[in-house]
């Protein structure tokens, strides 16, 4: 089939403003938007820049805005989209070139929540065990591939790029609710700042955008509740009445 695809192009060496360019390519309806981008790059304009690696929804490198919504180009089928297909970079990150955005700030925020096991205990000789129920507690947030679709669909992030963003909170959630981890207080302090979870307005764009189907809004909500509980818990055990 003939497919019309419009791509927001930006070359920092030539353009002041991004410009929409239209291409017509021949593809199967069951091909993906990534195949359309390949067709453009390989047969029409080799200067088109975009990221992709696995091409199978695993690496998270091809997050972009497709027909007004954040999606992975390698997961969206052409037959499911209205034509012309409009492709633009994720919003809120500086554009490096065409569909490539600068994600350095995104990964700084990711690192800021200490996304690794924090434990004072000496490493055991085998695995650190936990029960299936303890493992299930954070199952949903283990699925994140750090594509950035959630953070760049969030109006709070567009308004204030200091906001740590849904992706970093998802990553923090994965460790905060892990029974083997002891870094809860540290991470809570980071997420309790003005740039932390309280910027979330429960808008659900992140959940709608997540290509891994993570209930991001719920994860953020659980962190918020944890912070409220920690703040309202009396610092000392309440005095016993006699």
């Amino acid at each position, binding site marked *: 089939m003939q497919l019309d695809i419009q791509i927001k192009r930006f070359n920092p060496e030539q353009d002041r403003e991004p410009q929409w360019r239209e291409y017509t390519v021949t593809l199967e309806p069951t091909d993906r938007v990534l195949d359309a981008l390949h067709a453009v790059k390989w047969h029409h304009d080799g200067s088109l820049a975009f990221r992709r690696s696995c091409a199978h929804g695993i690496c998270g490198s091809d997050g972009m805005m497709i027909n007004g919504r954040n999606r992975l180009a390698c997961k969206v089928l052409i037959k499911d989209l209205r034509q012309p297909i409009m492709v633009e970079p994720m919003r809120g990150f500086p554009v490096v070139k065409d569909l490539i955005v600068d994600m350095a700030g995104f990964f700084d925020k990711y690192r800021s929540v200490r996304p690794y096991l924090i434990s004072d205990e000496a490493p055991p000789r085998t695995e650190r065990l936990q029960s299936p129920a303890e493992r299930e507690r954070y199952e949903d947030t283990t699925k994140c591939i750090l594509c950035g679709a959630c953070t760049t669909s969030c109006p709070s992030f567009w308004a204030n790029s200091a906001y740590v963003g849904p992706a970093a909170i998802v990553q923090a959630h994965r460790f905060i609710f892990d029974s083997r981890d002891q870094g809860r207080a540290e991470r809570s302090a980071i997420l309790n700042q003005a740039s932390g979870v309280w910027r979330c307005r429960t*808008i659900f764009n992140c959940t709608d955008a997540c290509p891994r189907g993570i209930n991001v809004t719920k994860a953020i909500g659980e962190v*918020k509740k944890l912070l409220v509980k920690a703040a309202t818990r009396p610092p000392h055990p309440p005095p016993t009445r006699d």
Partner: protein
Amino acid sequence: MWYRGGIGHWSWLLHRLTGVGVLLFLCLHILDTSLIALGPQHYNAIMGVYRLPLFRVLEVGLVASVLFHALNGVRIILIDVWVDLTRIHRLLFQIQMACFTLVMMPVAWIMLRPLLVQ
């Protein structure tokens, strides 16, 4: 291009707009009531303007804004308190809009009837 978010996105946008709208009305209201300090004739003049039919229609918009803002706020609070409700947030929004319609229909009728049956 505008972000094509879901129900959550549009309800958030409306929440903002109605919030700002109600705030503007409050400012206006403080201004008009303080006109009494300049003398009753000024105050009565502005009250006369408010009695114009156009303002009646705007008042219905004001009630609708306050009601939407309040109901939507309650929905967000419920979801924030019981996070499992995130799974049915679309259904919650539909219930919210059903309540909104149920309340607004009689209210709009009562408020606009004097204009219609004149």
